[in-house]
């Protein structure tokens, strides 16, 4: 782990009263490797190591703390801060608190977007389940008309949760979403969750389509559903989605795996949009708030 590597770096260096530039440079090489192995984007790693260097060089070595621990803490705190947390605070217990930007009047519209297979459909069901448990009346919308049995997938999930699903036999997604929001208003659903087809950020036509969906439904939340094992490509897609839509937040999925999840840091760093919640399993209960401190530890391995 990074902590162990830093320890070995500093054990080779002698006693210090303050951290010198060459001490820190050696530690930075380890930090850079750790972050790259964790899939943090190269541009973010470069910026991070520069910031860490600025903070670490010249720092007085604290009496009771080992220098490697001191540098490790600087790295950890920097990550927590970038992930949207407050260094030094411990994450609140999971009270199920998931922040949503509520509509001032009329149903709150939540648009789920992202690359193929990232977990959008499953996440829509999870969010609907959570909101229903909090007393809301969500409407799920099957707006993926392209993937075989995508509509069926959302219908099965909706049925298992006893949550209504708006779906149509044929039609184009933007119109389907528009009609769904009108229906929600008429039927008294206070939240509409739009499940859209997976799409590549380089697919002009499909990016135009998702922009059209947003234009017609004026979503209060536009969430990028991001697979936590995504590598360097995460910034490419996130940037384009954010520029096209824009995004209001990110959902990180499949965190029950053992990927370090550096893509989360890259995406937050590049878009500035916060992680709203995370997916931790295939079941519809597997939805949790995002904990910046836990994510920081995970990325650092």
């Amino acid at each position, binding site marked *: 782990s990074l902590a162990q590597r830093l320890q070995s770096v500093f054990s080779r260096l002698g006693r210090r009263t303050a951290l010198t530039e060459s001490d820190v440079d050696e530690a930075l090489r380890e930090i*850079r*490797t750790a972050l*790259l*192995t*964790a*899939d943090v*984007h*190269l541009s973010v790693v470069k910026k991070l190591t520069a910031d860490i260097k600025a903070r670490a060089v010249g720092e007085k070595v604290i009496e009771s703390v080992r220098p490697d621990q001191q540098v490790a803490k600087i790295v950890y705190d920097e990550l927590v801060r970038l992930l949207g947390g407050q260094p030094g605070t411990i994450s609140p217990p999971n009270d199920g608190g998931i922040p949503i930007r509520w509509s001032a009047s009329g149903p709150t519209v939540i648009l789920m977007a992202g*690359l*193929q*297979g*990232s*977990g959008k459909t499953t996440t829509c069901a999870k969010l609907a389940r959570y909101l229903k448990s909090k007393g809301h009346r969500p409407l799920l919308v099957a707006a993926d008309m*392209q*993937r*075989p*049995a*995508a509509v*069926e*997938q*959302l*219908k*099965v*999930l909706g049925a*298992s949760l006893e949550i209504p699903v708006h779906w149509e036999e044929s039609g184009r997604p933007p119109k389907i979403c528009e009609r769904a929001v009108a229906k929600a208003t008429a039927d008294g659903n206070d939240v509409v969750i739009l499940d859209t087809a997976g799409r*590549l*950020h*380089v697919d002009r036509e499909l990016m135009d389509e998702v922009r059209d969906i947003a234009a017609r439904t004026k979503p209060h939340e536009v969430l990028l559903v991001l*697979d936590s*094992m*995504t*590598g*360097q*490509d*995460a910034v*490419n*897609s996130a940037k384009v989605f954010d520029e096209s839509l824009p995004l209001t937040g990110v959902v990180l999925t*499949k965190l*029950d*795996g*053992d*990927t*370090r999840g*550096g*893509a989360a840091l890259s995406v937050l760093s590049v878009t500035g949009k916060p992680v709203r919640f995370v997916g931790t399993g*295939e079941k519809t209960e597997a939805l949790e708030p995002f904990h910046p401190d836990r994510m920081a530890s995970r990325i650092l391995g």
Partner: protein
Amino acid sequence: ALVKGRKIDDALWEEVEEILLTSDVGPDATTELVASARLAAKNGEILSGDDLVPWLRSAVAARLRPDEADIRWNAGGTTVILIAGVNGSGKTTSIAKLCKFLRARNKTVIVAACDTFRAAAVDQLGIWAKRLDVGFVGGSNNADPAAVAFDAAESAASKGVDVLIVDTAGRLHTQKNLMDELSKITRVLGKRIPGAPHETLLVLDGTAGQNGLQQTRAFREHANVTGLIVSKLDGTAKGGVVLSIKDQLKLPVKFVGTGESADDFAPFYADAFSSALFG
């Protein structure tokens, strides 16, 4: 970019490093590749900046070239191909593509819908089977995947079908019970058709980072993975982690997925892949 007429200097090496790192080659494999390139430059194998990219292209291609590119056919009967991988990597769609690929080569094919867990998984494969005119074996909702696999093997063998492709549920390699389930499926297939599965292809998401290596390693411990299908290479992801996979696990990429239709599929060509890496 690595334009013509550049001399070999630190800035050039840094640029090469950037290309490799942002292609998901990973820090260790990048360091190793750049070190061997620097040594080649020192030995006079690379004389100018113009020689560097061709050298790298052929070095990477050489490392990735599979020793056996074709499917491991079963000489004695139905060839069983097991498809596995983590959630959402593109297994079911890759099976559709593989069906079309095999049908174009006049093979008779049956697919087994052994993802009995996820909502509409069986429906999804069923739609593809119908579109591509291949046989389909499914089970009842939440049936035991191994039982469906056995029924499919039974059906394929008795009908003398050329290829049986088994679709499985997405699973994370951290889920012990699901990895055990995968082992069970392979055992059951082998019971009915000797040597089955003859080919086990792990579908790796082209956008995956370094975890792709851990995934492959873990899946290989539970199933005799013989190769990879790398999906979603039609985006901007380069799939560079396959270098470490080939280097450390000796597993070749056999096919690549380049889109969502059944045509978006091709055998893996190391030169083409390597060229795409260096743009």
